[in-house]
């Protein structure tokens, strides 16, 4: 059985903490008017992205969603360029053209976020097909939400991945909500992972706030995929600790529900694991300090980066004529 070593635990903690702080900082900047558009925070779900990406190699792929900052960071994106993108700056991942919902990163194999709920799912199948054609042993992890699993491309794509035996891991982030709608209202089944079977993709349910459990499950799925045994569906049960986006107060989220999930906040759980593994608090405090510094730097970088030039933009879009 898989047992994480100290190094892995620490690296997971670092990334989870970085995501948490990135989101907190971003929301602040949004409220200050420095970030516009939709901002979907990943707070409460950090263990899913970090657990999954910790099971991956750098040359593996991920496909992300509108709630994608966590995926970016987990796969190794540069938070300076992420923040710059949120600020709409030329140094951002999309040159300020995309904003929060459209960050992608070739270097770390992040195919990108998507403003269309479910839009990335078929793309992941295509990435899987590309890998298969190369006969390499890479894999693609496709992140998507409980809401996205109601979009028809979900079933279509699972089926395609199954019949072609593609190395795709469908990672369903069930955070209990699709915007303001509770998952109870959009499915009569308790487990969305049940949807895999009929398409020939074995489904599994896991507790998504424990990065170790997520990592272990994805490692298994990845091994299967690398061996040419095809796709997997993993439903990670987790919780969106804020409203759907910055401006959504989430008043429809029952306080008890939130409390229960806050009591199993992924950052609390990983901190406990670190403690159990005998890692020194001073080491952790040092990491936290580094993260604070990095966040500050990222904000400064974003702030002082240049706005994209309108003239240049208008010149560039002539390719569309």
């Amino acid at each position, binding site marked *: 059985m898989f047992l994480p070593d100290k190094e892995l635990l620490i690296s997971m903690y670092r990334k989870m903490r970085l995501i948490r702080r990135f989101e907190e900082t971003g929301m602040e900047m949004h409220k200050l008017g420095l970030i*516009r*558009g*939709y901002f979907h925070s990943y707070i409460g779900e950090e263990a899913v992205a970090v657990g999954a990406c910790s099971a991956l190699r750098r040359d593996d792929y991920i496909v992300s969603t509108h709630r994608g900052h966590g995926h970016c960071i987990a796969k190794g994106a540069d938070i300076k360029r992420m923040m710059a993108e949120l600020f*709409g*700056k030329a140094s951002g991942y*999309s040159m*300020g*053209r*995309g*904003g929060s*919902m*459209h960050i992608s990163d070739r270097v770390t194999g992040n195919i990108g976020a*998507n*403003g*269309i*709920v*479910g*839009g990335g799912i078929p793309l992941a199948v295509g990435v899987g097909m590309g890998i298969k054609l190369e006969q390499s042993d890479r894999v693609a992890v496709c992140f998507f939400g409980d*809401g*996205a699993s*109601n*979009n*028809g491309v979900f079933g279509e794509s699972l089926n395609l991945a199954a019949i072609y035996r593609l190395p795709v891991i469908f990672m369903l982030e069930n955070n209990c909500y*699709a*915007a*303001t*709608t509770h998952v109870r*209202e*959009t*499915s009569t089944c308790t487990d969305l992972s049940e949807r895999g079977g009929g398409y020939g993709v074995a489904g599994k349910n896991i507790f998504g706030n424990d990065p170790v459990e997520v990592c272990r499950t994805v490692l298994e799925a990845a091994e299967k995929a690398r061996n040419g045994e095809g796709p997997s569906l993993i439903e990670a049960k987790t919780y969106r600790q804020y409203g759907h986006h910055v401006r959504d107060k989430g008043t*429809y989220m029952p306080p008890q529900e939130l409390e229960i999930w806050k009591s199993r906040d992924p950052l609390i759980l990983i901190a406990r694991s670190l403690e159990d593994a005998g890692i020194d608090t001073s080491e952790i405090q040092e990491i936290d300090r580094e993260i604070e510094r990095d966040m500050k730097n990222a904000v400064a970088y974003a702030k002082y980066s240049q*706005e*994209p030039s*309108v003239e240049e*933009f*208008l010149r560039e*879009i002539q390719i*569309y*004529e």
Partner: protein
Amino acid sequence: MPRKLLYREALNEAIREEMRRDERVFILGQGIAARGGSYGVTRSLLEEFGPGRVIDTPIAEASITGLAVGAAIQGKRPIVEIMSIDFSTLAMDMMVNQAAKYPFITGGQGKVPMVLRTQGGADHGLSIQHSQSFEAFFYHVPGLKVVMPSTPYDAKGLLKTAIRDDSPVVFIEHKLLYETEGEVPEGEYTIPLGEAALRREGADCTVLSYSLMSLKSMQAAEILAGEGISCDVLDLRTLVPLDRKAILDSVKKTGRLVVVNEAVKRGSVASDIAAFAAEEAFDYLKAPILRVSGKITPIPYNAALEQACVPSVGEIVNAVKKVMES
């Protein structure tokens, strides 16, 4: 003092009145029940009409639209809300191959009295997949009607008519109009589809537009008036059916035409109307027909870039001045 309502309130009132009037009317969409819709259009309808007629749906644009088509065929009058017209790409088959075709297939016997309500337009940095203007898709499909109101008054009167219409109607709102205010009388009224509104009369040039661009066209006309150029400002209100007569009357009078819309210029409704005028009013034209439209590009996030993609009042002014030179 005449009553004033916001655009979203006018829409809400239209839906409410029609749901009271006809129990076959129901509404479905994402977050439209307890939440009241992303832009507040369906607020408190749930309380009045209950969850049987005010229905939250999963994210399944194709099938909720198809549900509306099927229910309409069965005899109901559904309103389906697609949160953003960008997502209507997922419902295209249901609109284009099902809703639009069914009356034809049945020799006019089968009716499809449904309304697809949605919203488009760029702003707020919603960027690439939440800012588009796709009316041209629906405009091109025989069997669909297309409505794009610019004022609260029109929004209410046209939505009521759309709900009562026996054809599928694509009703497109603009995200920047929801919080605009305008006069809406207390009593019952409807506005027929296919009638443009002449918002302002002038002799020199016709400025033709719809939805948000009507407001910008009015601002442009105001500026131009200050420079001695008087414009007919024609707000189409419905694109299908198109008020060809109003267009021709105005163009024949002024001899000049500027067509304004927010959608990408290439293949836009503006192009079609320009072509129509070039075909039917050629002998009256004193100048090239100019289109002021969205830039041919996806809509970017950065505020300055975003604004550079959308027609501005200044661009409309300049276009009119340019045709005045001919």
